[in-house]
């Protein structure tokens, strides 16, 4: 059952002249009860605006938002039964941690004993019991962040909204807080909508991920589905770090079957023999231009691949080698295309060294160059 539904949701910011800026462009999205939905995309893609419209902090220009079956377009934020965690925490600087967490309950005129019980329960859950009397400025970034989360959970709302809550934390803190929020979701069993521009957060935390670009939804799917079967070049390039490599080329016929031939005027273009489902998809594009997408981890040093097969290897030149410890990021080029391979760190690589790279063909994706959609 959809718990939060966005129907043809539009947000237009008026301009002095012209039709206005369409920050959100008629999106449809269904978020299930108890789901952890992540809205992800580059800055300016409309994800925060969408979240703020769900919160009621932005007026809706068109469409409808329903929460638990009720259209809330004109319902005040306080009456939507939602809580929000802000990017910079938005803690009240003049109130103690306890008062910050109790504020919403106090305004809703809960009895004092109930407020106290809820605040202490949340504080225990978040490890804030020792800090209840402190003011926010006496807390570290991570602690402030937990207070902001605590302020949301004491209200026991129907829906939690998170607006890039980790982006002000340092890298280490971010990783641990990420896990804490995931645990919290499991424990509270609540519906959560989480906005981030960080695809790692999206991949690790979301039950489903909604990728947005320019006010449109590009794809909504579970994390691995999104990673393994991106619907478009944008999604493929956005999810994953380093991002997917793209090679422009054509599908041509050969005696062995359909072949992807790289566009390369500077060196001998590489050829990839297409088989299985990939060949079926490519059949309609025979003799036409396509884009071939390969994730860095699917491009391996042939020396380390047990059974490279024929027609799956290409020659490339090392531009830079970045040893990461367990693996090495090789920045390579074929003459026409620069790409990245994430290879095992068994042997060192020298700059300008020639290497033979094998693509794991069952993981290679093809895209239409005009629509940028996956074949």
């Amino acid at each position: 059952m959809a718990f939060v539904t966005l129907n043809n949701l539009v947000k237009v910011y008026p301009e002095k002249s012209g039709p206005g800026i369409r920050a959100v462009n008629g999106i449809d999205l269904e978020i299930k009860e108890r789901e952890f939905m992540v809205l992800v995309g580059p800055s300016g893609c409309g994800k925060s605006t969408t979240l703020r419209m769900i919160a009621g902090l932005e007026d809706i220009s068109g469409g409808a938002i329903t929460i638990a079956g009720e259209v809330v377009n004109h319902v005040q934020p306080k009456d939507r039964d939602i809580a929000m965690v802000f990017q910079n925490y938005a803690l009240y600087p003049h109130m103690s941690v306890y008062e910050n967490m109790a504020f919403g309950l106090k305004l809703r005129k809960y009895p004092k004993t109930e407020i106290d019980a809820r605040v202490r329960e949340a504080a225990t859950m978040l490890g804030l019991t020792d800090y209840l009397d402190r003011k926010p400025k006496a807390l570290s970034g991570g602690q402030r962040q937990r207070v902001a989360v605590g302020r949301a959970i004491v209200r026991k709302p129907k829906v939690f909204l998170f607006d890039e809550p980790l982006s002000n934390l340092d890298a280490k803190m971010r990783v641990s807080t990420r896990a804490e929020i995931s645990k919290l979701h499991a424990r509270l069993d609540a519906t959560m909508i989480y906005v981030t521009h960080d695809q790692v957060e999206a991949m690790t935390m979301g039950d489903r991920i909604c990728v947005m670009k320019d006010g449109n939804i590009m794809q909504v799917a579970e994390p691995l589905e999104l990673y393994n079967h991106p619907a478009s070049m944008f999604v493929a390039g956005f999810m994953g770090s380093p991002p997917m490599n793209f090679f422009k080329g054509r599908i041509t016929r050969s005696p062995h079957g359909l072949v992807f031939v790289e566009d390369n005027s500077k060196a001998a273009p590489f050829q990839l023999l297409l088989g299985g489902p990939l060949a079926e998809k490519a059949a309609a594009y025979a003799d036409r231009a396509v884009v071939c997408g390969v994730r860095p981890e699917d491009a391996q040093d042939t020396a380390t691949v047990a059974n490279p097969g024929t027609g799956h290897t290409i020659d490339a030149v090392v531009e830079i080698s970045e040893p990461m410890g367990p693996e090495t990021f090789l920045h390579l080029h074929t003459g026409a295309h620069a790409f990245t391979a994430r290879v095992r760190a068994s042997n060192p690589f020298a700059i300008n060294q020639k290497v033979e790279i094998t693509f794991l063909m069952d993981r290679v994706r093809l895209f239409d160059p005009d629509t940028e959609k996956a074949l």
Partner: protein
Amino acid sequence: MSPVRSIDGSRQRSDWPSHLIIWGFLLIELFPLYMMFQVSFKDNASFIANPWLPTSPATWNWGNWDFGLRLIGPYIANTVFVATTGTIGTIGFAICGAYFFARCKLPFSDALWAAFLLLMLLPGVTNIVPLFTQLKDLNLLNTLWALVIVGIASAQVFNIFVLRHFIEDLPKDLFEAAEMDGAGHLQRIWHIVIPLSAPIIGTLFILAFLAKWNEILLPLIVLRDKELFTLGVGLFYLDGEYTKQWGQVMAAYSISAIPLIIVFLFAMRFFVKGLSSGAVKG
């Protein structure tokens, strides 16, 4: 003079010439106060014989103070009423107005703001005649409420002007968080704006109180009955009636200044904090 510590903690050499200049100005400023105070203990004979130097405390004429207190006691009571209600009203309304301009974006609010600022360019005195006829129509002439109401209205532009920018600088997220927490506009003002703008509100409070305490033109025009007189107008008439009794007049002046000095001493910390707030964002 010994070296003084500057704000950032580094030692600086003190600066003789500038200190001399400051002391010079201070003496010029303080001289009338000194004269007022020391003359308030003299009768006319000793004042004429020795106008400049204070007499020994043993010969102080406390009768002047007794007289002054009885004379202007009712004026002080009236002034306390006008200044206190007026100041609370002024700041209360100004906070609401400033909050509106800072946080509520409605169509034409910019035009409203421009019209509002235009009022600041208008010298207050030009208003006097229309104000008088308006108060007459409202049957408010010769009442203290006229002073309170006009005082509140005329102080809005300046106070809103100052407060608006202060409130705009408060993080927007705080207001949104409060909105999500269920706070209405008035609750946001009470729980967010007032505590976080305390220094500037304190400063404006003192400035408004001072202005109302020292108000003279409006009470002079509005008030007719002597028992309604506020200090400004009361002391003004005092000057004419008791010119010859310098000691008594000066005692009355001294008494009228004391409540202000007390208010100021209590609020000094706030005042300085408010004036320098914004200089260093903290």
